[in-house]
């Protein structure tokens, strides 16, 4: 076998290994990770659906900065996650190194607020939705959140800092189901 053919076989293995590795890691997190519910906030009620996905914005996306920790916009850090009594979760404080004994998400600091807390950008900024359902569900979703004051939250599985978005719920209904019902009534 020539060198080129051997390299092709290595390349083929790499091409399959990369997506398989991504699938494996995310499936592991979804299967073995701990579930947390993060309340969502609608940013642009006129257009919560952009193209084929829903743009997500966490309602509580800030965390305290411990004294002595140097942070600036663009820096990566680890945000500790804590569950409230009502089943929702929020960020508590930032760390420079991943903690060993608490759930956390790897985040990026967007800006430092006046009260000293850090506004965070999480790796969970979109939820893909079929384009057929999106137009009909768009209006129903915006109406549900603004007029009916319904709560929406993201179900996130955390495993060693890796955050995988499992689902988006609207008042206990899966968003996909909610979108199908909205499409059926429109």
């Amino acid at each position, binding site marked *: 076998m020539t060198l080129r053919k051997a*390299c*092709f076989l290595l390349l*083929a293995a790499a*091409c399959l290994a990369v997506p398989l590795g991504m*699938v494996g890691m995310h*499936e592991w997190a979804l299967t073995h990770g701990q579930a947390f519910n993060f309340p969502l906030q609608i940013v642009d009620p006129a257009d919560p659906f952009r193209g084929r996905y829903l743009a997500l914005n966490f309602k509580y996306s800030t965390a305290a900065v411990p004294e002595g920790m140097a942070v600036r916009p663009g820096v990566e850090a680890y945000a500790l996650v804590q569950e409230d009594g009502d089943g929702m979760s929020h960020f508590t404080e930032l760390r420079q190194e991943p903690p060993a004994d608490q759930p956390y998400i790897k985040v990026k600091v967007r800006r430092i607020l006046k009260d000293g807390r850090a506004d965070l950008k*999480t790796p969970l*900024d979109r*939820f893909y939705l079929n384009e057929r359902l999106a137009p009909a569900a768009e209006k129903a979703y915006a109406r549900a959140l603004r007029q009916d004051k319904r709560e929406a939250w993201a179900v996130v599985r955390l495993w060693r800092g890796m955050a995988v978005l499992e689902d988006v719920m609207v008042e206990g209904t899966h968003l996909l189901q909610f979108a199908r019902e909205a499409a059926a009534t429109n």
Partner: protein
Amino acid sequence: MDEEKPVKAKHARWLLAELPAWEAEGLLSPGQAEALRLRYVPAAGGRNWATTLFFIAGLLVAGLGIVLILAHNWEELSRPLRAALALAPFLPALGLGYFALWKRPESPLFREGAGALLATAVAASIALVGQTYQFPGDEWSYLRTCLILIIPSAYVLRSAAAAVAAFLCLIAMTSTLSPGQGHHLQFYLLLAATLGYLFLVSRTNRHGAQAAVLSWAAALCLAFTLNAVVGPYRARLTSTFLFAAMVCLGRTRFSGAPDFWRRGFEIVGGCGIVLGMLIFDSIGGKPLDWSTVLRLSPADMWSVGTAGALLALAVLLWLDGLRAHDAVAGLFGAAWLAEIAAQTIWSSSGDQDWVIVIHSIYHLVLGAGLVWTGTRAHSLGRVNVGSLILIILVLFRFFDQDFSFVARGVAFLAAGAGFILLHLWARRRLGDAS
């Protein structure tokens, strides 16, 4: 014996058809005829590449059709099944790659098809996995992952199509490359790896179709991406340095190309110099502050380093062109000097009109120089390019000023008539000379 000189295929066919008659008439000896057959070979490309391009287009359209069919009922499928189907695009791509390397190693058709299909499969597969598991909208990470798989496929399959796909990914990275964003080292490594394939191909056959296609892709990629790295403040300077370097590179390292379309670096560089300076004059802006341009803060290091490297490259290649007595390289390559002079005078005087004056003088010298040297070298094409530059200069300047429609109409008529007369004069003079 002298090295081979690739010529257009139709010229090679004409020569081969004429040689027996010349031998029969005693104009050439058999040895001389054989020497000519060996010297003038048909340049690779043309019909073969048209077939390859259609083959690639057909594969890509079929592949996209499969993806669309899958996408129709995507959300009805379970997540594990979606993940498995995300790998499906690799099957035909790797299958064709295996066939190309094991069964048809000398056929560019299958190698190029495999390269194009594999690049598409990589992009589609990672996107489908991302959609299944709700990956964040991190364009940089997605493109970097694609490039890490696509670049090696260009080398392994010897596929220009895969290398072109890599250049397109690098161009798509432009939005993630502003100064201070922190991806520059990785970007430069990926760019160097992709350019390395062009370097390898040009060492084997710098006038071949692969080298020609890749030089176009590389020239356009560099034009888009390097200006994003340096940022808008320094782009006025560095774009001129880059385009000047491209023209000189094309004239010194890729000289002798039999067809005009094979001169990607020259054409992109030349258009960039001529149009870039004039468009920047129209846009206007603030004068450059040299202390800011040369500032070496951490956020500016990559920007300043890139600008410095491009200047060094432009100067070195220009000197190469001058040593080779190449008038075209000498004229276009001097653009870096004109730009530095223009920006310096504007910066010290505060009057942007100086930039317009210096750019106009440069274009005048460039156009007139090309006309004059083209006449001496009996190159009608060069004469036409020179006079076209002069016309473009006239058009831009008259668009800039507040002249009436009548005045502009007269100026354009004069410019057009001048171009036609110059062209006719050049044709007559070059015809008389030959």
